[in-house]
């Protein structure tokens, strides 16, 4: 597979997750730190299904995504009525709770020691294929009446409701789709690392994903993907000083918010830049 192949796979996985976060935070304006939990759900579902129940990996990945989506939907219904900060805190609670459950439900998840022996089904073609398909679907979704609805909920939910939008429903939908993407990413991660541990899906992971979206631009899918590439590559290149990694993430988040909150791309897309009217 090679070193470069491994990096591309990791890039694809991160990009799928980050597209989900972009939809939720960048396009629908919901600040959440729950993504790691959905990745964990996807990872463990895929891992357990392939190892213990002989399910084919493709179905296992989809199942992982679906489980994450359903949990996101169920959690979203009562909590997304709340605005901003309430939901953010709830999402942190979610990540921590799921991590706790994973660590303590030893019989199913083998606990904090982790779940080993997962088949390495995430090969380069698999990762790239999933990424391409899901990227195209995300672009489609955003360039549709749903994308307009999400953006309306983000920019002015009051005005959106006065255009007849049931903003609660759209927010939950956005969360569900985002959950699916994170779940699939988690499942692919399980098939790549062949070993998963609860600690891989903690607040730091959520923060990484959020910082990629912020860095790329809240409201730009191409910006998000660009940021994902940059940050993944930089992380790899700077492995020797990885203890500074989190410090730099934090610093970058603050710096961007203070200096250029629009991130790299703002709300523009790379593919729209040439259109000037």
């Amino acid at each position: 597979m090679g070193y470069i192949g491994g990096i591309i796979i990791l890039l694809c996985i991160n990009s799928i997750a980050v597209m989900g976060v972009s939809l939720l935070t960048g396009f629908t304006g919901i600040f959440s730190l729950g993504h790691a939990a959905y990745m964990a759900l996807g990872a463990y579902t895929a891992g357990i299904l392939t190892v213990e129940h002989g399910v084919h990996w493709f179905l296992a990945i989809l199942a992982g995504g679906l489980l994450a989506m359903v949990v996101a939907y169920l959690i979203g219904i009562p909590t997304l009525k709340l605005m901003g900060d309430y939901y953010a805190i709830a999402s942190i609670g979610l990540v921590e709770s799921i991590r706790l459950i994973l660590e303590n439900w030893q019989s199913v998840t083998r606990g904090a020691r982790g779940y080993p022996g997962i088949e390495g089904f995430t090969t380069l073609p698999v990762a790239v294929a999933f990424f391409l398909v899901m990227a195209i679907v995300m672009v489609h979704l955003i360039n549709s009446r749903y994308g307009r609805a999400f953006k309306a909920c983000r920019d002015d939910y009051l005005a959106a409701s006065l255009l007849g939008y049931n903003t609660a429903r759209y927010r939950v939908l956005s969360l569900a789709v985002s959950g699916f993407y994170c779940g699939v990413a988690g499942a692919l991660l399980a098939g790549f690392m062949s070993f998963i541990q609860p600690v891989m899906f903690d607040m730091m992971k959520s923060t990484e994903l959020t910082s990629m979206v912020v860095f790329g631009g809240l409201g730009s899918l191409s910006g998000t993907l660009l940021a994902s590439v940059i940050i993944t590559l930089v992380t790899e290149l700077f492995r020797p000083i990885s203890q500074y990694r989190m410090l730099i993430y934090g610093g970058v988040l603050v710096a961007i918010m203070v200096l250029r909150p629009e991130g790299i791309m703002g709300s523009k897309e790379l593919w729209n830049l040439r259109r000037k009217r």
Partner: protein
Amino acid sequence: MGTLAQQLINGISLGSVYALIAVGYSLVYSILLFSNFAHGGFLVIGGYICYYTLTALGNNIWVAGGLSLLGAGIAAVLTERIAYKPIRERTNITLYLLIASLGMSIVIENIFVIVAGGRFRALPPVIPTNPVHLFGLTTTSAFDLLSLVVAFVFLTGLQLFIVKSKWGLAIRAAAFDLKTAGLMGINVNLLISIVFFVAGVLAAVGGIFLSVRYTLYPQLGGITIKAFVAAVVGGLGSLPGAVVGSLILGLAEMLTAGFISSQLRDLVVFSLLVITLLVKPTGLFGKKPTEKV
């Protein structure tokens, strides 16, 4: 494990420490209407300053405590000036403040990881932890009683400050309507700095006690998530709510740890959050912010 009385006292003592943190956090929320995720950082700063002062300058808790409170308060003000002020002056999108606060919390935590190392440190035993017998009914540790008393003193001090002082009045006005308070002649930037200073001081007190209880390490700030939950349960923006929520949380945690299982105590905390959000999202005493159309 222990008797009911012991766990109750433990719970109230822990809850009172949570209250110090939750109140500072709720205070900031009531003025700026955003959740300052970096609040945990102030706690850690307080803990480390206390630790280093105690080891370097001898075991005088008053000096160490004073310096740590001062240091945390200043750090809080600096955080606000560096990260939040530029943002809130340019835009009223609280999402940006939220993300910046997340960034600051990571920065603070990791500065300590790099500078102080990730290992757990025990504070020099300046704060007494010996067992105390209460009226022959039960035994508890002097530490629990002390943290309860200290928390009570600080919270009362805060209450007096808010109710009796001029700046306290300004804070109450600003909590009601920040813009109007500014128009009435209150120096909003100074007010916000004062609020952050107070929040930092309170967090530092909590940090010192938590360092003794759990040992000191850079990620100790993560415990503020429980203070956040307490603040939500009590009602974001309400100070009495933060205190009540914290006590409920502390009791729930200790009773669970004492009688059910230590592993489940955190899950109980988050269940409380879920229940609150489902039943009464604005918490016990919270106010719903109304938007003018």
